[in-house]
């Protein structure tokens, strides 16, 4: 299969089930909402070392937020319910509670499974906090030096979240790989239900499970796709490929990942790209398999 001269490899991306939450952060201006969102989603690229994965889903106009202020929608992922509650409480407490004018609302109001991150944070108010119910949802008003911080009591959990959707851009040069990756990120940016948790949405250090040279390593460099060690390892790089970048996607469900991969791969198929591949573990670890040629069917 080829798209505009770019070979689509007959392989698949292997992804995992994750627990997901959607947060809506609002503030007096978009600048402050974004400031809180950037801190909240900071150092949240991979559960392996960051304990969570998070990213900005999209910017929200006042008409789309509960309090009619500018806002930012965030998707937040962990491997289980317990850690999702802990990470949410930590991060909302350190980034939204501290940020001038910011409030935090649940973005999955219909989800039956709930986590009481706002309820946990209420104790910062040292028994001076107040709770109020609006439209059937409880909110905590926590007194702070600025005035008051408003945080929703509970946040919905999507149990069918998917983490680790991915595709590899195999290019003739680092510049071409980066240009294609930027085009893919631009195409995916703002799509509902999906985030790209890595810097700028792009990963240069794809990993394999474990390591050959060091015991105890959970993951090490994906040497099969590293061009500089091509003669020293069992390389998977086609002839003429000198740089590879990876796009990693987390989504609220498998269809969201599928749509985003399709848009991203389509945008990445441009001059200077030899092939599109994907990372997997032989299909034995993750229950979600996104076969590239099925994802790109009829493009």
């Amino acid at each position, binding site marked *: 299969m080829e798209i505009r001269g770019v070979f689509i490899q007959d392989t698949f991306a292997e992804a995992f089930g994750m627990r997901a939450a959607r947060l809506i952060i609002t503030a007096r201006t978009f600048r402050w909402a974004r400031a809180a969102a950037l801190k909240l989603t900071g150092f949240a690229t991979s559960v392996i070392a960051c304990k969570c994965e998070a990213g900005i889903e999209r910017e929200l106009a006042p008409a789309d937020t509960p309090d009619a202020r500018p806002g930012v929608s965030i998707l937040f992922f962990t491997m289980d319910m317990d850690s999702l509650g802990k990470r949410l409480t930590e991060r909302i407490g350190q980034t939204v509670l501290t940020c001038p004018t910011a409030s935090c609302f649940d973005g999955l109001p219909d989800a039956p499974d709930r986590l009481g991150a706002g309820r946990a944070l209420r104790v910062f108010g040292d028994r001076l906090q107040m709770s109020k*119910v609006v439209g059937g949802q409880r909110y905590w008003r926590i007194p702070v030096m600025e005035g008051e911080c408003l945080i929703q009591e509970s946040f919905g959990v999507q149990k069918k979240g998917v983490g680790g959707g991915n595709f590899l851009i195999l290019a003739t040069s680092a510049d071409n790989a980066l240009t294609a990756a930027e085009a893919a990120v631009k195409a995916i940016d703002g799509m509902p239900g999906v985030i790209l948790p890595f810097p700028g949405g792009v990963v240069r250090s794809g990993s394999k499970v474990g390591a050959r040279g060091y015991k105890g390593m959970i993951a090490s460099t994906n040497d099969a796709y590293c061009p500089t060690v091509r003669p020293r390892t069992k390389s998977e790089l086609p002839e003429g490929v000198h740089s590879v970048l990876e796009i990693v996607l987390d989504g609220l469900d498998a269809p969201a990942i599928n749509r985003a991969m399709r848009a991203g791969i389509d945008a990445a198929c441009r001059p200077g790209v030899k092939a599109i591949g994907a990372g997997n573990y032989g299909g034995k670890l993750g229950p979600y398999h996104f076969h590239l040629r099925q994802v790109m069917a009829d493009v």
Partner: protein
Amino acid sequence: MSDVVRLTLRSVIDQPIDCEGITPDRLAPLAEADIAKLTVWVGSRQARLGDFFDVKGERSDRLSIEGDLRRVDGLGVGTSGGEILIHGSVGRRVGAGMTGGWIDIRGDAGDDAGLAMQGGALRVTGNAGDRVGAAHPGASKGMVGGEIVVNGSAGTDAAARARRGLVVVGGDVGADAARAMIAGTLLVFGRTGADPGRGSKRGSIVAIGPIDIPSTYEYACTYQPGYVRLLLTHVYRRYGLTAENGALDGNYARYCGDAPSQRKGEILAYTPG
């Protein structure tokens, strides 16, 4: 099954009838003839719904009631689901004790509307009488959940002894609003009458219009409460009720009270300019 059950009052009635128990969730499984046989009370005398109302439709949880209903009491009492649309003004106790569903009154409501309400939504496009959302006589608490929205004005004792829930009054509200309120919120767009929030424990009064702050409340600060913004946005989006320009982004003076309690209650008074 029909889309809606229509009850039309045949003529003006000269004494009050009590329609307590005529709720959409109760009517939902009934045929037209069975609905007409439901019991209503005229004083201490039992009568049938069909003695006063023409009934059209069956097996629907949507109920439409028309006619001069000012002497019809207890409409929608205890409603747990479904919808009642009332064309015209109604008597006392409309929606009292309701636990769910939606009651929409296109007119005025008498005294005790939404008394001890537990859930659902009650909207009055006209005015409401005394004790909207308040407690039954002698009861320790009034409404414990749900939302009451009065587009016009309301009488005395609005939200008195409320434990939870929201009462919104688009016009003025009478004396003793939020008296002995345990928690919950009273939002008033117009003037708030004398002695608001007397004996309130953790209740909130949000006053967009003029309000005389009782001396037992202590000024805390003037700020922009995120809660009020959320509340006004919700009221606008769900009920179409808008506050005056500036109220959404404006400053509010916060007063803590009432003095005999631990000052956990509050009055948030809009301070334009």
